[in-house]
């Protein structure tokens, strides 16, 4: 068994999400340092607010302000914060029922240690300095002493009072960008590892099904017809036949290839499955089914850059019709 191939794989996406009237009011409120809930028809106040009653599914949009102070309903001490979590120093995750609300909001609670946190403790919102209309406009919660005076964080007590605001704001936000990044380590498995290793020697290696004898390239380790593992390695190509193609007219982002260009299915000689490749070395409007092609390797590349005509006569349709 050769060494397992591995490579970093970063999946990153900035989803742009639109907001409904209730979410818009809530997140715009956070930008203005106002916490809004939504009232259900039976008189409960939900914070964070939702657009539909979780019990009755009735649409709700009666916004009410709640206090930026509240009570911890449960908590968990996070001694090793992970990337992108609200605080970089150890903190408590907490569900906080804000004063005036009947449900609890999840956020971080900045406290010196687990001994300083308990269910039932009083906390208040600490606002982020830069606010954009997002849940992270609440930087975190912090301990709050109701008895008056400044707490040990030196917070401004005026911010612990409701503001009397409604859900009406100038310039309400209508959407958020939800960015996310996850870092994976990709490993392609046994069959594809063998394929990639062979490509490094400029060889195309497929695998033959022990049952139906078809040769798959690139091999994925299984025959999709028989549902059994493939294992016998078979060298195919390097030449092949264009079985079908399309002409690409729109340039992909970051792609250094002039349009229009041709993208084709190519049945390498000896293979029973066509693979994908770009066709070069011939005007795009002269590419045709049956065209005989061979790979062109760029210096130092681990896979063919493109395929070009070999100059042979076109293949007869009957020789590749099963592979179209």
């Amino acid at each position, binding site marked *: 068994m050769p060494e397992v191939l591995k490579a970093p794989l970063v999946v990153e996406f900035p989803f742009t999400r639109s907001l409904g009237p209730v979410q818009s009011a809530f997140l715009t409120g956070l930008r203005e340092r106002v916490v809004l809930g939504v009232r259900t028809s039976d008189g409960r106040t939900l914070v964070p607010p939702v657009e539909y009653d979780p019990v009755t599914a009735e649409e709700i949009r009666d916004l009410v302000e709640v206090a930026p102070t509240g009570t911890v309903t449960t908590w968990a001490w996070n001694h090793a914060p992970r*990337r992108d979590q609200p605080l970089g120093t150890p903190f408590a*995750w907490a569900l906080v029922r804000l004063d005036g609300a009947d449900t609890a909001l999840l956020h971080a609670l900045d406290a010196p240690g687990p001994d300083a946190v308990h269910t039932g403790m009083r906390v208040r919102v600490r606002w982020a300095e830069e606010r954009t209309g*997002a849940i992270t406009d609440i930087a975190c919660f912090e301990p709050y002493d109701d008895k008056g005076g400044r707490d040990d964080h030196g917070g401004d007590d005026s911010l612990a009072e409701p503001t009397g605001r409604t859900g009406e704001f100038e310039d309400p936000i209508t959407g958020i960008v939800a960015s996310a990044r*996850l870092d994976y380590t*990709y490993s392609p498995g046994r*069959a594809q590892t063998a394929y990639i290793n062979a490509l490094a020697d400029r060889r195309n290696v497929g695998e033959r099904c022990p049952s139906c004898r078809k040769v798959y390239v690139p091999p*994925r380790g299984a025959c999709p017809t028989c*549902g059994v593992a493939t294992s016998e390695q078979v060298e195919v190509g390097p030449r092949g036949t264009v079985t079908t193609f399309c002409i690409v007219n729109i340039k992909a982002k970051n792609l250094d290839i002039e349009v229009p260009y041709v993208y084709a299915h190519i049945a390498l000689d000896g293979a029973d499955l066509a693979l994908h490749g770009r066709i070069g070395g011939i005007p795009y409007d002269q590419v045709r089914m049956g065209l005989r092609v061979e790979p062109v390797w760029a210096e130092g590349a681990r896979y063919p850059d493109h395929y070009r005509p070999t100059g042979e006569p076109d293949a007869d349709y009957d020789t590749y019709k099963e592979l179209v």
Partner: protein
Amino acid sequence: MTRHLPVRDIAVVAFAQTDHRRTSEELSEVEMLMPVLHEVLAQTGLKTADIGFTCSGSSDYLAGRAFSFTLALDGVGAWPPISESHVEMDGAWALYEAWTKLLTGDADTALVYSYGKSSPGPLRDVLTRQLDPYYVAPLWPDSVALAALQAQALIDAGATDEPALAAVAARSRTDATANSHAQLRGSVPQGEYVVRPLRTGDCPPIGDGAAAVILAAGERARELCARPAWIRGVDHRIEAHGLGVRDLTDSPSTRLAAEKAGAFERPVDTAELHAPFTSQEVVLRKALKLDDSVRVNPSGGALAANPVMAAGLIRIGEAAARIHRGESDRALAHATSGPCLQQNLVAVLEGDPR
């Protein structure tokens, strides 16, 4: 209460699972899956072409690759075309879909499989992407943190304490010594806090694995299995996504699913509970009204092996296998998905009277 019984008798007739491991990086998903597919087929003597319906469960987010389940289909011989479906859920929900398909009479046999490769990515972070994207996901609360909030709520309510949670962990891993597929077996230290009050021992291992079952209807089931595990009922329910809306110390969705599946009509002797965290077993035992007469998680449960997206299907498979072996006459299997037991499925399985 009157419950409508299924119109056809449908049973789990075969079950197979991989050895669950921290990593299976030398295998692609289909390479990991194929041995268990072949094993359930071999148990029944069926060929892929004999299967009436195929349904799978998995999640692209685990491996970080789009449409990864389509490649796994190569392992079931999807050419010439077969009747197939996929759920972006634990395989237990794929089994539910296959069960309803057999109930319609459109097929007499079904192959259900699921797999999860958690090793390529940071699982605790990956699972945050299933949370509410407006109010919760931007904070990246990881799966252990959310379970820890639930555990603290249980401790505050007096429903458990840390020694009791450690006892759940110890019992599960001791039971897993009899399960050659389990990832964590025998004496495992409770360890340090991961997110307090949960310690390493309270959390499931992160690993890769796959499972498959075959369902068959009526006489077909009797032909394929000496003692079929008849599915007397399956139901699944979901709760509000807002964690702060729910009472985390209870699981009304589990209780309702169990009621609709007929779990409370007669006592069960075995319960395979999908409780990835020790504290969740406390919640589930209460919701399902399980007393000490019921054998809970003789396989070791999810604390011994928790291949995400397969661990729920494995609970059904383990419960069925006990009936196949004659070790149980009436078993309950439970699967969960989402944070803090958000979604819950309950199946009730029975063997023929002896």
